[in-house]
């Protein structure tokens, strides 16, 4: 199992992501954004979190033009699996690989805390180790995590089971930290090979650090 992790100037979660996947037994490689190719043995491509290009203009807006992104689009078209975490999710929406957009949090604060999430759809490789309705506790750390999609787009997400995770309280009741449409925390594309979420499963790998609920999420990709 080979996980390639993208690194842009300003990415800061690439080593956490590497550590998380290696602890699950995967081989990893960090790919600098100037690379025009991604390793041919890649089983999963992760667009890691951070602040690519300092979030200038909009989060993820500049990163989408990095040289590596052409290879990312080609990889996506061939059905390659891609996971975008936090800023990675923003990059994938900016690049048009995932629907919707991430706006400034409704109350304008940067939010950094553990938050519960409810699994909405496990009929995909990412969440296959979890059950629908499961509640996981995963850290969030973002300023622009307010997911927006128009009504037509939302209906399409629902019809295709593309809503992966929503924010909730510990009992599973809807609880919206950032103003996201329908408290959406993560979505996938229609073909279910591209996944994006604002929370950080790679920061929830060990109980001693507050939660190991990220293990079951990332394990979904392992083979």
């Amino acid at each position, binding site marked *: 199992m080979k996980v390639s992790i993208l690194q842009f100037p300003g990415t800061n979660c690439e080593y956490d992501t590497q550590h998380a996947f290696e602890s699950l037994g995967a081989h990893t490689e960090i790919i600098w954004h100037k690379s025009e190719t991604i390793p041919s043995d890649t089983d999963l491509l992760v667009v890691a979190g951070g602040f690519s290009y300092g979030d200038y*203009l*909009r989060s993820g*807006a500049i990163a989408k*033009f990095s040289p590596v992104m052409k290879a990312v689009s080609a990889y996506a078209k061939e059905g390659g699996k891609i996971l975008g975490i936090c800023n990675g999710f923003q990059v994938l*929406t*900016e690049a048009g690989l995932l629907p*919707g*957009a991430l*706006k*400034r*949090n*409704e*109350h*304008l604060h940067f939010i950094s805390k553990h938050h519960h999430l409810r699994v909405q759809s496990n009929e995909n490789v990412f969440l296959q180790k979890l059950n629908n309705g499961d509640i996981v506790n995963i850290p969030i750390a973002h300023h622009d995590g*307010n997911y*927006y*999609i*128009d009504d037509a787009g939302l209906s399409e997400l629902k019809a295709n089971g593309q809503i992966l995770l929503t924010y909730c309280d510990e009992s599973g009741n809807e609880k919206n930290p950032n*103003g996201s449409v329908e408290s959406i925390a993560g979505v996938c594309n229609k073909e279910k090979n591209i996944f994006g979420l604002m929370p950080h499963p790679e920061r929830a790998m060990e109980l001693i650090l507050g939660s190991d609920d990220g293990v079951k999420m990332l394990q979904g990709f392992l083979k």
Partner: protein
Amino acid sequence: MKAIVNVSLKAGVLDSQGKAVHHALDSLHFNGVEDVRVGKQIVLKLNENDKEKAMADVTKMCEELLANTVIEDYEIELV
């Protein structure tokens, strides 16, 4: 020639910053404000003299980079 690009959230997309500014104006007793929208202005200095060509170029820039048309509208003024 200069192009002034104003980018703002689309009508119907909640503008939290606009709301916060509106609230702040209210608390300063500026009561005559009905609505506030916060956007950004991008000023481009162009080496193009043909207005039509410039407008076409800047429109393309807006569509590809300067605005995210999922949530934002843009207006271009050439001066």
